């Protein structure tokens, strides 16, 4: 089940593996409001309305339960809260789900039966699930399905969030989360802090920090006055971008460390030019499947650009603190001494074996191709059972209105990446640029043609974009990428709603209106 993911374009080489599975007889269901290039390879495409994932997942769960296809042994042994969950999904009949999601009841039933009866099954998702105001609840709704059927914690079955960036997993692993130290150890836990304090020789603040969205709120109240931004371009990438730029603009101090002079860097008081992590310096990155791999320097950095480690070390020295760990290998060994997940991954092993998947707790441990195997152990590996989580359908925060009657969702194109700072110089013959995809029915109603420049407005602002008429886009739905902020600020349109549990903004569901530009008489 590919749910809210256009992996064919966003994760192309992962999709090669998926295609091998299909060639070997696997079935594929694609859940996506758009019939994407990934959906076209699916046995069944479920084109749901944007933001109705929970209604769909709950209906799948109910259909599995009433047909007695759920894995009762697994539920009894490894989970808790099933009865409450079963009662909570009871109102999500196929008929009601069809009404909410727009997906025919028969397709929901087919998905439920195939998933429940499969020997092995995986749910793979990306930002179609997480860029919503109820992102965490969306994820829970999928976890519930895996717990219901036992499709988790064993070879070939599982829950797979596909990571969108080459080291977004590694960033979290290394403690770039407001409440975690490296190795997912809580900053609130005195024992964990003591371990790090012993090595670092300084007290570790016990209070969790702020995630990105809360940082912007703290900038608004002036609680946050200085920002040190490394390798991120929030002045282009944030939802509701005009607000984000205003917040960055009113900081007392903005320091940016980047390889590009991004829009954020242009706003900065100080810019530290950095080397390219994967081609000009040594280190590790961690992929979506928790595989730690080495990156290596192939070319020297240009001009005054320096390695991130060197810049941060020099800054520490300027503050009067001399750090003993200097090389990537020394830093890695320090991490291994503090993070049990990484303990067995020596630099030499990473060199020799190419890549190792955490957890890897000892030198002779081969690494872990999948997680949560404890769910199948007699004593649950000494843990408590996995809980079902009751979640209810809410729909997008920003409802459609007479003024803004169209749904806008966003995503990536194959040949481009995020705000385009990396992919912009790739001379791609297949780039179609800053277009807004419109269904033929909506285009006819508004009176616009493909290739025509139109005015696109949301409650937050307006931009001009070129319309691209896409035959298999559902009526009422529009789509754009966010790769060309220098040409069109598509994040002017995106919603300011965000998930209180994860801090993720609802990029996937804004309300917009499209208007024909006033006709100009050409001379």
């Amino acid at each position: 089940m590919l749910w809210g993911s256009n992996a064919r374009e966003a994760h192309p080489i992962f999709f090669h593996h998926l295609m091998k599975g299909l060639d070997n007889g696997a079935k594929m269901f694609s859940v996506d409001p758009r019939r994407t290039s990934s959906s076209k390879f699916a046995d069944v495409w479920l084109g749901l309305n944007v933001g109705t994932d929970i209604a769909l997942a709950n209906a799948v769960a109910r259909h599995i339960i009433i047909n007695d296809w759920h894995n009762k042994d697994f539920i009894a042994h490894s989970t808790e809260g099933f009865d409450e969950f079963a009662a909570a999904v009871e109102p999500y009949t196929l008929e009601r789900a069809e009404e909410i999601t727009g997906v025919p009841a028969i397709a929901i039933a087919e998905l439920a039966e195939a998933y429940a009866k499969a020997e092995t099954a995986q749910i793979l998702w990306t930002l179609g699930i997480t860029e919503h105001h109820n992102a965490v609840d969306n994820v829970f709704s999928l976890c519930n399905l895996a717990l219901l059927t036992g499709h988790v914690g064993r070879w070939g079955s599982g829950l797979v969030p596909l990571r969108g960036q080459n080291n977004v997993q590694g960033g979290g692993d290394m403690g770039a989360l407001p409440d975690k130290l490296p190795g997912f150890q809580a900053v609130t836990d005195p024992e964990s802090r003591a371990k790090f304090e012993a090595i670092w020789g300084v007290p570790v603040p016990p209070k969790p920090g702020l995630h990105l969205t809360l940082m912007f709120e703290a900038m608004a109240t002036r609680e946050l006055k200085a920002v040190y931004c490394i390798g991120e371009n929030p002045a282009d990438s944030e939802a509701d971008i005009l607000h984000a730029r205003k917040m960055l603009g009113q900081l007392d101090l903005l320091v940016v460390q980047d390889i590009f002079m991004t829009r954020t860097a242009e706003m900065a008081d100080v810019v530290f030019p950095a080397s390219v992590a994967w081609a000009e310096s040594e280190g590790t990155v961690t992929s979506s499947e928790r595989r730690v791999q080495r990156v290596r320097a192939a070319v020297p950095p240009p001009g005054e650009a320096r390695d991130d480690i060197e810049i941060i070390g020099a800054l520490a020295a300027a503050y009067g603190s001399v750090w003993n760990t200097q090389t990537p290998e020394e830093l890695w060994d320090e991490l291994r001494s503090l993070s049990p997940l990484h303990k067995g991954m020596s630099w030499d092993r990473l060199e020799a074996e190419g890549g190792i998947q955490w957890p890897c707790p000892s030198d002779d441990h081969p690494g872990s191709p999948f997680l949560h195997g404890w769910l199948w152990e007699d004593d649950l590996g000494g843990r408590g059972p996995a809980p079902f989580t009751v979640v209810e359908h809410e729909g997008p925060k920003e409802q459609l209105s007479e003024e803004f009657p169209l749904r806008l969702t966003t995503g990536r194109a194959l040949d481009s990446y995020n705000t385009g700072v990396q992919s912009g110089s790739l001379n791609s013959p297949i780039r179609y640029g800053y277009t807004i995809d419109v269904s033929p029915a909506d285009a006819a109603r508004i009176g616009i043609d493909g290739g025509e420049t139109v005015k696109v407005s949301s409650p937050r602002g307006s931009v001009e974009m070129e319309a691209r008429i896409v035959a298999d886009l559902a009526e009422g739905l529009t789509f754009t990428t966010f790769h060309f902020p220098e040409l069109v600020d598509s994040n002017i349109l995106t919603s300011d709603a965000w998930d209180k549990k994860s801090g993720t903004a609802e990029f996937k569901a804004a309300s917009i209106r499209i208007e024909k530009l006033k006709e100009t008489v050409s001379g």
Partner: protein
Amino acid sequence: MSANGHETPVSLTIDGQRVTVASGSSVLDACTEAGVATPTLCYSENLTPVNACRVCVVEMEGSRTLVPSCSRQAEPDMVIETDSERVRHSRKTVLELLGSGVDLSQADELGQWVTHYEADVERFGAGRATMEEPIRIQDELYIRDYDRCVLCYKCVEACGDDAQHTFAIAVAGRGFDARIRTEFDTALPDSACVYCGNCVAVCPTNALQFKTEFDLREVDNWRPEEQSVTRTVCSYCGVGCNLELHVQDETIVKVTSPADHSVTDGHLCIKGRFGWTYVHGA
């Protein structure tokens, strides 16, 4: 999929030498295990053998015809000869036939075998009777020079169900008119091509060539012997594709991926293959 470690290994004889390989291995794998080098053209470890070129043939006891080692599965107690008069003659003739109609000047590996078997590529007439097709330069990512094409099908396989599943190219025409073509021979940017470059990566003769390499060759500045190759990880999505950065004069000139890497099997997408230009501030 070949070797399955759970099944009984297979023992066979290569040039009088007993070797043991995993069940499901090919005769070619067994030759490699025995330390015997074998010329291949249409074979690649990350593609399904198509048996198009016949340059890897060996003599097998009990078989009337020579067998292609790349696709013939190793069986217990097979007796294989790789350097008999019949094998040498066959391989030599295949190379002479290929060389008579195709420009093999940039097929480095094949060139070594031409020398090894003393193949005379002018045996069937002086000068190469190539198709005399113009080089197709339709974008900045790769070029197509079909005078170098031996119709080994590797590009078609990589574009199709061996990896990419894009099916932008196929063999069109028959006999002398057979060519690798996009649908209706449309220009590449207008075809189904998604510019992953996986066809270029498997091409054994440089008929498909990265534009960076082509441009450097045009000014006589392509110096592979001076290039360093550094293995690293792609900077885009979270799949973790390994890249080999080929660097000449402190500049990236080509990106490949190791065919034996479990994540990529040697294949990349447009971003990983071509999206490095920003490193040099392009």
